[in-house]
Each structure stands twice: as C-alpha cells, then as structure tokens.
C-alpha cells in the first residue's frame, strides 16, 4: 500500500467513517497499536513527534525508541502511572475511510470505560499477547463487546515477533478464541498476526509471516462492510425538539435513527397511537423527498396531533414497544452500589423519565466467564439482568433489534451522576398506571402460618406428556403432609377464566399471563401453587417466573418424546390434530421450546408417575419449600 496516500484528502461520496474500539490488557500493546496506526498513517505531525521523543525519555518504557503509547495516554496521571484511565478517542483517515478509535483500559475495574467505548463502536479490535494466548481478560473484553451489540471482531495476535513469527502459536490462539467466542453472537471474526511495536501486518503485509494469507489490519478495517448492519431496520424517529418559529410552522426536529421515511408516508406516534402523514421533510439545504437513517431533519405532519420531545415516530406496520416495565442488562458505573427498589432517573433515547427503579435483579453476569450468579445489589463494574419499572410508559425496541432505541442510562436523582447504562431485552407486560395498594400482611406472614414457603410449581411439556397425572400426585402428597396447595390446570382454566381464549399465539400468551397472575395472587396468600400448562414458549414461562420472587418459581419439565405422547394420546387430540381437525397443536403444527435450565427435569419413559412425583417433592425439600416432619404428631 502506498503509505503516502494515507493522509488522503481526496474524499469521494462513498467515503465513510468506521468507529471501532481497541480492547486489551495493560501490557497487550493497545496504546502502542493505536500510536502505530496514527504514526504510520502519517497523522502525527513533526512537533508532536518531537514532544513524543521528549516524553519517551521522561516516562517511556521502550528505552531510546519512541514509546507510541505516550501519544494516546493523555492525562497526566496516566502518563505518570503508565496506564490508561479513561476512554480516549483518536482519529485517522485514509482515502477510503475515516476512523474513530476508542482506546479503553483493560483492567477489570474499568469495565465501565470499556462499555462506554463499545457503545458507539461498530467493530472491536481485541488484542491478544502471542506469548500469553487467550486470557480471562480476553473473554471479559469479548463478552462486554458482545453485550454492547458489537458484531464484528478483529483478533489481533500482537507481539508475534516475540514468538518468532510462528504459525503454530497463531493458529492455536485463534482456535482457542473461536471456540470460546462461538456463542457470543459475532457475525464476523477475523484474526491477524501483528507486531504493533515493529509494524508487522499493520499497514503493510509483513515479510516475516509468509504463512499468513489474509489482509493487513488497515486493509481489513478499510474494506469491511458496515452498511448492511442497519439496513432494513424499521423506521424510528425520536423527536428531539419541536420547531415552532411562527404560528404557521410546526416541525419535529430529530435524527432518523433507523429505516427511512418519505413525504406522504403514514406515521404513528408510538406512545399515543395517533397517526398522520409526513407532509414535508425540511432541511436548511432544501426539502427532501425521503430521509434515511442518519439524517438530521425536521418533519412536518399533515394533521395537528400532539407530538413532543421524547415521542418516537414510526410506521404503523412496524411499531416499537411501549411499556412501563421491561427487562434489561444493566452495567453499574458508580461507586455507590445499585439497590433494587431505589428511585433513579432514566434517559431512554430522547425520553427523560423522572423516576423509576430496578425492581429485581434476576442474576448478575460474571464478566470473566459469562456465568450467571445470584445478586442482591450491583456494584461498580458489575452487569446484571434486571427488571425495571418506570413511572411512565416509554417507547423502545429491544437492544438486539436496535441499538439506538434500545439503550438507556440511569441517573442518580440527587447527585445527577450517570450511575448505570442499560440494554433493553424485552418489555414486561404488566398492569400499567395502577399504583400498588400497600398491604400490611404479606405472603411471608401468611406462609409462616402454614409452615411452608409459597411458590409456583410449574409443569410444562407436550400434551399427553403426563403433566396433569404427576401434578395431581404431587398435590395429593403435599396435602397428605398438611401443606396448603392449590392446583391450576390449563384445561380447567380454559373452562372458566380463560373461556374466551383460543389457541393463537396471542391467546396462548394471554392464557399463560392470566394463569400466572392468578398463581401469583395465590403465592401472595402463602399457597403452594401447582400449575399444569403445556406453555410451549420460553418467553411466557419466563414471564411467569418474573411475576414472583427469586426461588419462588419451580419449573418442572415433563419430558416425554412426541412419539410416545402420540401413542398415549389420552384425549384423542393428536389424532384430531394429525387429521387437521385441530390447528396450532403443539408438537404437530406449533413448536414447543423445551426449558434450557428447568429446576426439575422429569424423563417419563422409564419411570412411574409415583417416582416422578417423589422427585418433585425432594426438590421442594432441598429448596426449603416444605419441611419433612409429620406435623400431625405435634
């Protein structure tokens, strides 16, 4: 490559910008790599090089050679301590692309900064020291990038010179990396052997790695396609500001964050469901016929409807979610730990929410291993999967579907510090705008009266799997042990409470929601609630799980192969379904999603219902739901 052309000014229409993040540990050579990219792409001027040479003598760690890391470690404290404290943004340009690099520190205590850098990055360059291979921090960096929605990764195996440019070392590291990163949702992983210190495979292909056939780092960064990333997303236009220069003009100023819209298109205001049409798309440079993702415009509508800052305009066919409760991954960024129930302010897109709270931490994520751990609070740099309730409904999309409309920040209402950042997973559909009536007696008191811990025992499985049979036995056994139970059976509920529901997807969700709500009320009154529902979808089962507290939802997977269920066919339903008389029958023409981690997994093929029921009971004992004493002797 012609390095002289790198300063390149000759912009074309197609010249775009790539924003990426570099991740690596203290000694992986991250800052050196960025310094090298800036230097080799001639973004460093002579006076800066002179200053650098002076600094290298003072603070450098490279002897007489220029320490490129000092170029990017900007704050005094960092230069003294030789570490990168904060996120630094660096820029360089080539004729094909301009680049913005977020340089972030690698230590565990700076997860906050890595997440900050990753939030606006389209790609991550993850540095691995060739001598050390994939380390715990490599996994941490990859996990954070994945959580923040980065889908493209470049694994830069650095210091390849220190392992004599050996192919085996590179291959082993890449193999290790790909194996562990396979479930992180990356759409592309490229691996490049480099030496940031000596410039191997950075701007030019290195002669020392003849065995490597891929592009050098810069070539790769210049050519990777980023357009397809957001193409095809639904239209979203968060209104930032109402532009009313005079009585004749009322425009909504904002940036199209995804999709596109044309004059004449129908739109809805997501929160109010009011609809209208786009009358004009106004810009200083003249009116547009169409606005696309990334365009900052002012939209006028053909009807006078109420629209203000925080509203999101969408198309009626592809609406965002509107809810006052949702589940989200939250990264805690403050010294003061997050406490469930405490009131915080939120900003979701252009919507400012004065108060809301984290109602439950379902689990926290160990950033080093990805495993889920129980948690009561979130400390600085911890990431938790939480349920959140906000004072007013907000408009959003799941983060996975749209990074711009699915992200939020959490603000301390008193100090105004930004204390957390979140990525919405899904809305929780619960009662809106109804305040809780405080009750003086709770489920704890009521359950104590019955010498038991209230819970939901949720039997799920195919029709004919044996759910009702086992559930009945469990019910009888608990009753015999003087426990206060109730049994909610899917079929029975459909005769009453759920009589109006059919078997469409929406009706199935509603069926489970109602059953779950009823079960929750009964848990609140201290009962052990046994539920028997096919409940084919993980989402609905998890919804019910979310209705109650930690440890109060015991999922029992009644695992019977479909062939066996068809053979048993106790109600003759499979016969009807197969002959087309019943539609949407689970296992035949509707899917069943088996639980991934049920509390109890019952395989019915080689065990009798009695034994299976006892398995459930012993689980209840282990979990402290019931106590195995014969109270009748008292």
């Amino acid at each position, binding site marked *: 490559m012609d390095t002289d052309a790198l*300063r*390149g*000014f000759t*912009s*074309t*229409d*197609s*010249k*775009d*910008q790539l924003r990426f993040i570099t991740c690596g540990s203290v000694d992986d050579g991250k800052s050196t790599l960025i310094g090298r990219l800036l230097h080799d792409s001639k973004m460093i*001027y002579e*006076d800066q090089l002179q200053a650098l040479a002076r600094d290298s003598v003072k603070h450098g760690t490279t002897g007489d050679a220029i320490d490129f890391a000092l170029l990017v470690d*900007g*704050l005094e404290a960092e*230069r003294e301590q030789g570490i990168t404290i*904060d996120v630094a*943004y*660096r*820029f360089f340009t080539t004729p094909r692309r*301009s680049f*913005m690099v977020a340089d972030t520190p690698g230590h565990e205590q700076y997860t*906050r900064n890595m*997440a*900050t850098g990753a*939030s606006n990055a389209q790609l991550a360059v993850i540095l691995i020291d060739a001598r050390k291979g994939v380390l715990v921090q490599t996994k941490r960096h990859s996990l954070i990038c994945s959580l923040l929605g980065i889908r493209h990764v470049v694994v830069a195996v650095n210091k390849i010179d220190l392992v004599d440019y050996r192919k085996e070392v590179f291959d082993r590291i890449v193999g290790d990396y790909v194996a562990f990163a396979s479930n992180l949702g990356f759409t592309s992983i490229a691996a490049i052997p480099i030496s940031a210190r000596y410039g191997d495979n950075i701007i030019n292909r290195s002669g020392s790695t003849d065995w490597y056939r891929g592009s050098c780092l810069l070539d790769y960064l210049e050519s990777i396609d980023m357009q397809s990333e957001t193409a095809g997303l639904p239209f979203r236009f968060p209104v*930032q*500001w109402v*532009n009313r*220069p005079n009585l004749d003009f009322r*425009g909504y*100023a*904002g*940036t199209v964050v995804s999709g596109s819209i*044309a004059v004449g298109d129908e739109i809805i205001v997501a929160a109010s469901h009011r609809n209208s049409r786009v009358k004009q798309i*106004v*810009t*200083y*440079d*003249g*009116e*547009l*016929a*169409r606005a696309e993702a*990334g*365009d*900052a415009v*002012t939209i006028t509508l053909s009807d006078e409807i109420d629209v203000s800052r925080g509203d999101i305009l969408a198309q009626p066919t592809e609406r965002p979610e509107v809810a006052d409760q949702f589940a989200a991954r939250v990264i805690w960024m403050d010294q003061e730990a997050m406490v469930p129930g405490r009131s915080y*302010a939120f*900003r979701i*897109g*252009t919507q400012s929410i004065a108060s809301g709270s984290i109602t439950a931490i379902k689990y926290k994520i160990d950033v080093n291993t990805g495993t889920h751990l129980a948690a009561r609070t979130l400390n600085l740099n911890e990431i938790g999967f939480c349920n959140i309730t906000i004072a007013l409904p907000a408009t959003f999309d799941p983060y996975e579907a749209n*990074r*711009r409309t699915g*992200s*939020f*920040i959490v*603000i301390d209402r008193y100090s*105004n510090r*930004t204390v957390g*950042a979140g990525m919405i997973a899904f809305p929780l559909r619960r009662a809106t705008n109804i305040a809780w009536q405080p009750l003086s007696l709770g489920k704890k008191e009521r359950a104590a009266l019955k010498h038991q811990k209230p819970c939901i025992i949720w039997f799920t499985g195919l029709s004919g799997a044996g759910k009702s049979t086992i559930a009945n036995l469990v019910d009888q056994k608990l009753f015999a042990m003087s426990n206060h139970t109730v049994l909610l059976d899917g079929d029975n509920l459909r005769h009453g409470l759920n009589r109006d529901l059919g078997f469409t997807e929406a009706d199935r969700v509603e069926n489970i929601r109602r059953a779950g709500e009823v079960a929750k009320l009964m848990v609140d009154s201290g009962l052990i609630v046994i539920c028997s529902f096919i409940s084919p979808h993980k989402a609905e089962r998890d919804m019910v799980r979310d209705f109650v507290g930690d440890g109060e939802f015991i999922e029992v997977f009644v695992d019977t192969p479909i062939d066996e269920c068809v053979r048993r066919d106790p109600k003759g339903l499979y016969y009807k379904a197969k002959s087309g008389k019943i539609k949407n029958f689970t296992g035949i023409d509707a899917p069943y999603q088996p639980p991934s981690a049920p509390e109890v997994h019952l395989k019915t093929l080689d065990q009798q219902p009695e034994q299976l029921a006892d398995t459930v009971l012993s689980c209840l004992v282990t979990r402290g739901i019931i106590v195995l004493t014969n109270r009748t002797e008292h």
Partner: protein
Amino acid sequence: MATWSRGERPRMFKMNAHGNTKPETHTLPRHLRRLEAESIEIMRDVVAEFSKPVMLYSIGKDSSVMLHLALKAFYPAKVPFPLMHVDTTWKFREMISFRDEMATRLGIKLIVHVNQDGIERGINPVDSGPTLHTQVMKTDALKQALDLYGFDAAFGGARRDEEKSRAKERIFSFRSPGHVWDPRNQRPELWNLFNARIRKGETMRVFAMSNWTELDVWEYIMLERIPLVPLYFAKRRPVVHRNGTLIMVDDDRLHLAPNETPELKMIRFRTLGCYPLSGAIESDATTIEDIVAEMQVAKMSERQGRLIDTDEAASMEKKKREGYF
C-alpha cells in the same frame, strides 16, 4: 417510489434563507454527513434540555463551522441562543470586523464580554506573558461572563483530535460551581444518551464537534462554502520573527525590539487567537482549495502556532481544570 443514493437525492425546491452562496447541488461524503448530523443532534438536545444556552464564538474556523451547524439545526427557526465572544482586546482587527458583520447579517444576538478588571490591571499578552494574559482575559473572563448572564450550557468548538487531554473530554462536559473540570470524575457517556441534568450553580460545556478532525473541518468549509476570516488565506502581511514564530504586526501595541523590522511576507494562519500569541505560516494558499492541498503536506500540527500550549507539559489539561475552554 424511485430510489436514489445519498449523493444524488433530489432537492424538491431550494429555500436557503441565509444567502450563503452555495452551488445548487453539492454532495457531502458520508463521513461528513455523519459528523454534521451528529453535531446537529447534540445542538438540538442542548436547546431542548437547558434553559439558557449560549454559543461561545471565537471567530475562528471552528466557530464558523459551529455557527453554520446551528443555522442548520434549527432551520427554519432562527438560532435560539446568543453568541458570546470573550474579547481579550488583542484579537486581530480583521477578526472583529468579521464577527460584527456575521452577527448583523445573520440577525443573531452577539454578546461581547471583556474582563474590565483585567483591563484596569493592565494585563496584556506582551508584558504580562501569555500565561497570565490567558488566565485573566480568557479563562477568568469566560467564567465572569457565564456567571453574569446565568448561562447553564455553553457550546464550544473544541475537538478531540486537537490535543491529548481533549481526547478524553466528554461531549457534555460537566462543570461544578466555579466552572471546575475534574478529569478523573467525568460522567460516563454512552451511545448518544447525554446526561444533561445539573443543579443550580453547575454548568455544562458542550463540545458539539468533538469527533471532527482538522481535516474534516477544512473539507466541510470547502464543500459548504462557509465564510471565514480572511486571515486564514495567504496575503502579504507585515510580520516579525520571534522565538521561531512569525508574529504579525496588527497594530502599534506590539513593541518592536530595536533589531526587529516588520517585513511583508505571504502568510496565513492555521489557528487564530490573540495576535501576539498566534504564529503565522508562510503560504501561498489564497483559496480553501489551496489550503486543503497544503494540509496534505503539512508537517506541523495546528497547535504548533499557539504559544500558550508550549508553556509547560500537560498545560492544556491544567488550563482546562481551571475553567479554560
């Protein structure tokens, strides 16, 4: 519905209200479109979230771009905040006339603030030295003005590529009462979700062009035909050599040493500040296109011409902590 690529979108009709002489159809490359939209989004956010914003206007090229972006952000409304120039009284004369002309032409309210206390104490860059002069006439003056008018947010045109401590600056940069910046205690800034919440006495500095580079700025000025102070363009001007820098003799307040004789040279400025503190470069670039071409072979950074930064190591960080923009 026909589709078209970004570069060739049809203009339904032209209604540029501010009389800038721009070609009917011009295209910005995608990276500049992105930067432009991002800056506009930031400006709109500030206007929506703060009760009394102001735009710091230094008359330089970055300020010119900022002003242009503000026109775009709020069109067809007028720019909904005033411009404020903190005048050290040592600006080039051409800068002052350009400033007044722009404000009049665009119909934007312009506030000019001078630290009268500094004037009375006789502070000036020639005798007091650049450090004291900058502290009193720029940093202190700015704090005075923000307090005097009660502005709760102030736009600045600083960019992250300018200088090392700027590289870590937030777009919404929080200042505690007294306008103090604490680099170790900045609010995390994720996505485009800016935390605009402040309490009484606290303020926000907002750097809407954080992610632009010097190159982007020049290219944008060229493509958008943004008016600039003539000092950016090469012309024969009277200069003297001082400390390896070319200093322009703008008026008789610059005391000439006995061995100093102003000579006429083809010079221009890459950045503009107080005239005794701004080094000129020899150049033949008389048009933006020339400047852009010259930039491609430039060997020195733009801050090289600024005498205030070479005072001491990490001097920018120190000044910023104290409230310098």
